[in-house]
């Protein structure tokens, strides 16, 4: 394989070549580092590149594999982490001036898992400040840009993560999702991103946004790659009180390409509440036709309103955010970016009664979600509209703006975003696939079957030095 093409290998492809000793982890890592060096100034998807560490880890992986020890499909595979994942000895800023000098002593749970799997850390990805307020131009680093069109947003908050995967700067990254922060960037950048079931992946060492809705999860080019990553990072962690002790299936083995008789629910009424553009609706309906042709059954489902899910989450979130950032708001408010400060400053005025009532509301909404999910295998809907321009967003709009993603943070259900085509500007459309609690395997199975049946994984953004 020409060295110039290495950066577009999927994890599965690179892992196979490495296992056969047809690809050197050192060469693969060098290819990514060269590409980041040449092109990331156009996208600002990395805030820290750990080139020396990556070369050292790649050499160690290569030596071990050559000596006959192959740890598994991530051995020698480069990856990056959203800059809210704590990394021992490596600055972890959450994009905030408040953490400009923060160097953690310990890796996150997920980072430890990836290191144990022999993966190679390329660096840390841009985010919105504390994974919440953005895009911002008054924080520690500039916002990431969309590789399909630099004038457009890569969405957030795992913005650099999404951009880096699409640009071929890494085959794997981890993000976090409190209201759509993995799925939004996956959608905007035309890649695959999974918000796993709440509790399946430990949040230990991931700087919190909103404890009760935070999820850690992977972004990659394909669902097969997500399955490989999830297999490695899922599992019980006694240090995360939300972590669930559940048996893990073989996620990759679930990817059979077969969705015959799968029952797919569609919450059509939500599209009256948050109308779809004609082109997004058309891409969504075409995706449903693909599943019908593959033998799946499509049914309408009815859920509580999107607004109920969105508002309950935001009341809880603003109170929890203030709890996390209250000390800094009292002592050094000027160090926050204006967008984040606006979005959290009123959290201190939410009364305890209001917070607890919102948590009671969440109980109702989560139950309603599970009642509907009990009638189908998966639910499908668009993740969001194609990426808009990268420009400041009036922060007051963020309180009442609706999305198709937040409801599944409220429910805790696994939710995947994949690419389901491109609009007339060449920007990706997105399809969201939602599953029953802890049935992440079926979600990946459906996504993988769609990727196999459609041509969208063949197109990449065109970046030049």
């Amino acid at each position, binding site marked *: 394989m020409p060295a110039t093409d290495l950066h577009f290998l999927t994890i599965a492809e690179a892992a196979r070549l490495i296992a056969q000793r047809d690809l050197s982890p050192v060469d693969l890592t060098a290819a990514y580092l060269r590409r980041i060096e040449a092109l990331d100034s156009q996208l600002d998807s990395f805030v820290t590149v750990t080139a020396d560490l990556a070369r050292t880890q790649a050499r160690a992986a290569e030596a071990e594999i050559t000596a006959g020890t192959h740890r598994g499909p991530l051995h020698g595979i480069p990856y990056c982490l959203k800059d809210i994942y704590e990394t021992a000895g490596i600055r972890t800023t959450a994009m905030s001036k408040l953490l400009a000098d923060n160097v953690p002593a310990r890796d996150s749970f997920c980072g430890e898992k990836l290191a144990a799997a022999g993966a190679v850390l390329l660096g840390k990805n841009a985010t919105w400040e504390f994974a919440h307020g953005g895009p911002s131009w008054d924080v520690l680093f500039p916002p990431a840009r969309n590789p399909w069109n630099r004038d457009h947003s890569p969405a957030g908050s795992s913005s650099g993560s999404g951009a880096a995967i699409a640009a071929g700067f890494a085959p794997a990254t981890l993000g976090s999702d409190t209201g759509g922060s993995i799925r939004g960037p996956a959608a905007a950048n035309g890649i695959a991103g999974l918000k796993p079931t709440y509790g399946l992946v430990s949040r230990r060492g991931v700087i919190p946004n909103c404890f009760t809705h935070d999820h850690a999860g992977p972004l990659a080019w394909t669902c097969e790659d997500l399955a490989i990553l999830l297999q490695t990072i899922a599992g019980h962690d006694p240090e995360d009180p939300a972590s669930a002790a559940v048996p893990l299936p073989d996620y990759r083995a679930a990817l059979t390409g077969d969705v015959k008789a799968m029952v797919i629910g569609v919450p059509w009424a939500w599209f009256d509440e948050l109308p779809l553009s004609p082109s997004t609706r058309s891409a969504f309906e075409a995706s449903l036709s693909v599943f019908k042709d593959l033998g799946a059954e499509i049914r309408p489902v009815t859920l509580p309103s999107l607004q109920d899910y969105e508002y309950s989450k935001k009341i809880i979130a603003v109170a929890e955010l203030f709890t996390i950032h209250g000390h800094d708001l*009292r002592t050094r408010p000027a160090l926050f970016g204006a967008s984040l*400060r606006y979005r959290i400053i009123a959290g201190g005025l939410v009364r305890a009664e209001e917070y607890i009532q919102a948590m009671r509301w969440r109980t109702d909404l*989560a139950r309603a979600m599970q009642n509907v999910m009990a009638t189908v295998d998966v639910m499908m809907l668009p993740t969001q509209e194609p990426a808009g321009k990268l420009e400041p967003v009036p922060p007051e709009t963020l309180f009442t703006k609706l999305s198709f993603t937040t409801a599944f943070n409220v429910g805790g259900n696994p939710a995947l975003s994949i690419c389901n085509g491109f609009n007339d500007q060449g920007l990706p459309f997105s399809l969201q696939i939602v599953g029953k609690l802890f049935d992440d395997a079926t979600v990946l199975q459906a996504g993988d079957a769609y990727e196999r049946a459609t041509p969208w994984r063949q197109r990449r953004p065109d970046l030049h030095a």
Partner: protein
Amino acid sequence: MTDAPTREEIALYARNIGLTLPAAYLDELASAYANVRILIATMPTGRPHGDEPAHIFDPAKFQPVSAADVKA
């Protein structure tokens, strides 16, 4: 929903939670709080006494993880 608080009331609320803010940030707080009130006004009320919120304490989640966590 009750009447929107005045700027003076917002300043008092802020002081009560330990926020001594410059004028510009006080305007931010007033604007943001008005938006939060919109969200709160939509919440269902009149719930049964026994309605449990979604954050029930599970004591088993807080046992020592390692020997280092155990203090005599």
